[in-house]
């Protein structure tokens, strides 16, 4: 698949853009395909048909069904409207065998539109329609109308449209001030960071200006007043947008691409490596693609390396070496000059066509190699050195048998060398890390292994000193060696051995707050107070019986003594007194179970007063009776 490769080209060219001013963006093959796909949408109206048909023809493609498209144009044509005529006429030009019928009325409408009273757009559309339909027009009149209109509509779009109109006029006409408008417009472009040059009106305005400038320059055969840097900046801003929002935007980009890749004066050239710009012993040939902005190869060019310089040592190892052309790709076997691994700065010149812009290109080329690990020795060393060290050798890619144990009195040590497989030279790659990974907790600690003066890598782990980095978590750690470098084709991730680390004072690892911040908290059940333990009910029941017994005793003794109530007389006062008395006692019970003091006093006052009166009367009666009986 071509996509990742082309994508890399974009990135590579981005990287290059920073050094010398070379185009950072162009339409890669996949971009062109996407642009074509966008332009190949079904037509909705005449304008979309125009954008699709003409846009596709600019990209060198055509609509799927030309007959259908032609029918669509004819069906939608409104012979009274300048816009409609313009869209249909221009689109029909891009389709073979599609004639738009012209009547005298149509011609009159179009000619009438060419006047100082119409807008620039109207003039452009009328003029374009007339020239596409093969109808005669008076060029000098048009120029006059345009000049008058530009004075009124002084904006980028209007002037650009005027320039486009001028391309449809006869070459013999006197364009006067119109050609100078290109230069004026170029002065209005905004420079963004020295990389982009664009109108603030947006991508469409910029792209149409590029189109108009080159088409007009071709038309009148004078070099456009744009400097090389400006051209490159324009290329960057027109092609940096990779996702087009509307048909007209896509159309404008397609037109600009066509104008930039095919004109008589300035053709920006895109130099990019085929795939990554990397050579190695396995793949010694550096392949360059030299294309225009539409990714069409420029086969006529010839490519020469002016110099190739090592980035680090600044040694020039190659000068004036030509690339050979094979199947549209320029190739050079760089490994014949036996470069060491690393980056090389290439200055590449493209010749063979005077139109080329940005023909001097700086390229960064990588020479990569393969690494091998040798002399890997592992040992556990006592700090006081009283016990001789026992080293064990491990070979890549195997894992050491058994595990190594290091406590706080010992150091764990590892030595190894890294050599170039192809040349046998010792290497010092960018990344030589030792990673200790605890499977249980998922914790990983990474150390950097550093080479000594003889490029022998040594890694010592002082268990006591490094305690804090491991959070004092004793346990088995998997020891990995990570070797990597941008110039290494085989990065290494090697599980060398298992190491058991023992730390002295193992503290419970502090709870990390962020882990618990978003977790549910533990449930809390309220513990209700236990009711106090009560004495056995047997005791209380026994005492209840004991307490009740005097009352029973009273009743029994009374019975024996012959207690009676024979004197009771059923007078209302007597009955009322005893009922009232009983009620008062009952009220005491209700007070205990239900009522409060105030309610009780209220009821007591009622019952009490009644009982009092009844009692008084009853006793009075009794006294009267007793006196009478005497």
């Amino acid at each position: 698949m071509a996509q990742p490769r082309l994508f890399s080209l974009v990135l590579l060219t981005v990287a290059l853009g920073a050094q010398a001013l070379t185009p950072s963006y162009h339409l890669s093959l996949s971009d062109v395909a996407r642009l074509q796909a966008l332009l190949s949408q079904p037509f909705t109206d005449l304008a979309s048909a125009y954008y699709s048909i003409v846009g596709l023809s600019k990209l060198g493609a055509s609509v799927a069904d030309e007959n259908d498209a032609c029918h669509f144009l004819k069906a939608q044509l409104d012979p009274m409207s300048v816009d409609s005529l313009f869209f249909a006429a221009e689109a029909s030009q891009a389709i073979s065998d599609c004639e738009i019928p012209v009547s005298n009325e149509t011609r009159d409408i179009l000619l009438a539109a060419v006047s100082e009273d119409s807008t620039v757009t109207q003039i452009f559309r009328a003029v374009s329609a007339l020239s596409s339909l093969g109808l005669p027009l008076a060029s000098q009149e048009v120029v006059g109308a345009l000049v008058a209109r530009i004075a009124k509509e002084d904006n980028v779009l209007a002037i650009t449209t005027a320039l486009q109109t001028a391309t449809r006029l006869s070459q013999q006409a006197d364009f006067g001030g119109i050609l100078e408008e290109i230069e004026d417009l170029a002065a209005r472009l905004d420079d963004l960071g020295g990389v982009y040059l664009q109108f603030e009106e947006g991508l469409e305005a910029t792209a149409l200006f590029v189109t108009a400038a080159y088409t007009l320059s071709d038309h009148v055969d004078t070099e456009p007043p744009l400097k090389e840097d400006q051209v490159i900046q324009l290329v960057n801003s027109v092609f940096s947008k990779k996702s087009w929002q509307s048909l007209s935007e896509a159309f404008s980009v397609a037109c600009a691409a066509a104008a930039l890749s095919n004109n008589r004066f300035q053709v920006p050239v895109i130099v990019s490596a085929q795939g990554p710009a990397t050579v190695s012993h396995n793949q010694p040939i550096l392949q360059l693609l030299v294309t225009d902005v539409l990714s069409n190869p420029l086969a006529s060019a010839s490519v020469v390396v002016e110099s190739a310089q090592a980035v680090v040592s600044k040694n020039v190892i190659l000068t004036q070496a030509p690339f050979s052309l094979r199947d549209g790709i320029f190739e050079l076997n760089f490994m014949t000059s036996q470069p060491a691994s690393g980056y090389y700065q290439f200055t590449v010149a493209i010749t063979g066509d005077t139109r080329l812009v940005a023909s001097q290109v700086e390229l960064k080329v990588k020479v990569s190699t393969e690494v091998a690990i040798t002399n890997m020795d592992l040992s556990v060393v006592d700090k006081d050195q009283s016990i001789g060290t026992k080293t064990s050798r491990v070979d890549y890619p195997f894992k050491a048998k058994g595990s190594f144990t290091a406590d706080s009195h010992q150091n764990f040590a590892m030595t190894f060398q890294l050599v170039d497989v192809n040349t046998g030279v010792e290497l010092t790659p960018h990344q030589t890390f030792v990673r200790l990974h605890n499977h249980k907790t998922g914790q990983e600690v990474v150390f950097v292994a550093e080479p000594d003066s003889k490029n022998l890598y040594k890694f010592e782990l002082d268990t006591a000193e490094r305690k804090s980095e491991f959070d004092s978590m004793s346990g088995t750690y998997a020891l990995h060696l990570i070797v990597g470098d941008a110039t290494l084709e085989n990065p290494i991730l090697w599980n060398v051995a298992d190491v058991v680390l023992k730390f002295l004072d193992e503290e419970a690892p502090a709870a990390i707050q962020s882990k618990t911040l978003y977790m549910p908290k533990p449930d809390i059940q309220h513990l209700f107070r236990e009711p106090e333990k009560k004495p056995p009910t047997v005791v209380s029941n026994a005492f209840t019986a004991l307490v009740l017994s005097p009352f029973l005793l009273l009743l029994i003794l009374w019975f024996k003594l012959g207690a009676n109530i024979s004197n009771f007389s059923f007078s209302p006062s007597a009955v009322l007194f005893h009922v009232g008395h009983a009620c008062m006692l009952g009220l005491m019970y209700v007070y205990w179970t239900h009522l409060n003091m105030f309610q009780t006093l209220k009821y007591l006052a009622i019952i009490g007063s009644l009982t009092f009166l009844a009692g008084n009367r009853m006793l009075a009666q009794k006294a009267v009776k007793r006196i009478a009986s005497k």
Partner: protein
Amino acid sequence: MATRTSDRQTSRGSSTLLSNKRTLSMAQTKSNFIFFLTMSSMMHMALADGKTLVLLDNLNIRDTHSIFFRSLADRGFDLSFKTADDPSLSLIKYGQFLYDHLIIFSPSVEDFGGNINVETITSFIDGGGNVLVAAGSDIGDPLRELGSECGIEFDEEKTAVIDHHHYDVSDPGEHTLIVADPENLLKAPTIVGNPSDKPILFKGVGMVADPDNPLVLDILTGSSTSYSYFPDRPISQYPHAVGKNTLLIAGLQARNNARVVFSGSLYFFSDAFFNSAVQKATPGSQRYAQTGNMELAEALSQWVFKEAGVLRVGAVTHHPVGESTPPAAYTITDLVEYSVVIEMLSKGSWVPFDGKDIQLEFVRIDPFVRTYLKKNGDKYSIQFKLPDVYGVFQFKVDYNRLGYTHLYSSTQVSVRPLQHTQYDRFIPSAFPYYASVFSMMGGLFVFSIVFLHMKEKEKSD
């Protein structure tokens, strides 16, 4: 009525309004709820057309990142694009925030224009504004400072995250175009979207999280073999970030629910990365026709601009079981039913939230009861027995989960001890006392009758 309700809400506007409320009777709670509803419709509108300031290095970024910006615009954001050094920039005018959200896509800015600087951005975040920051290897000082304010330490300028084991086939040569495995994403679908197996392309600067800041979220980390350093200089000191500590994308939800996302890579959001194919350079690795960048960027932007993971509290009700209104004060050991409506913002409207781990606390200084709420129709409810301790308590729902706004609701109630009539009247152990009293009372009654009405026999008998 001694019930007091206070709710902390998700939006700036409503929280200030609600904090003005002091004492609410329960009768007012209903009108309170209606107030919520009107509030919510206002908030909904406020969220739909969020005014967003986009700061760019140059306006061309609008074109190179058009898919991302278009997806924001399609979702109703009102984007205003400015270059970061535009002298007319301002975030705050007359003490009011001019924008709801801020996007900083200008890694290399050395000084913001206008009256924007790191302090104003920090106070924007303190005021509840959301910020999306994309950096790159050309990161300038202001962004590094802003990162430090948020607990994220960027590596130095010109450094890049390097991974010699997981780089893309189209890497231009320095192994800085990294393929990040989706396993290294934070396990929080509200933030990173639904899990997918598409790898993520990244090219830019690395970050590490401040270990003392518990709010920083490691949204995307590097693999164990990654590190952050100058690609063109040999390693002479310990790299700023190594292994899984290397953050590629980090996030932060502040205590005021303002959200900030830092991406170490501006390319991450670019059209080129969205549309690119991706394949690790290791031989035999799988090729994916598209990166996961677009989905991740969209999910991140939804989260950071408060379209996802936003919760709010609706009506809160509580009453004793078997009744429908709350009493002036609960009595200890009452059986109480509490229910709360919790809603989530989804595609611009509030829908009932579906959570399984919402906890209710019954708090008097310390929680006495903490229990899970059960979903019951549209609301969450629970019945529980009040503790046998009296005092002023709060029903508290404090829901703080990864990716969601902090949801907090507390309702104050008082719990009083038993009244004297509510105690047990007859304790078995005290039966002798009751018996003696009742026998005395019975005795008095019987004795008074006998004493008053006995007919003594004649002495002669």
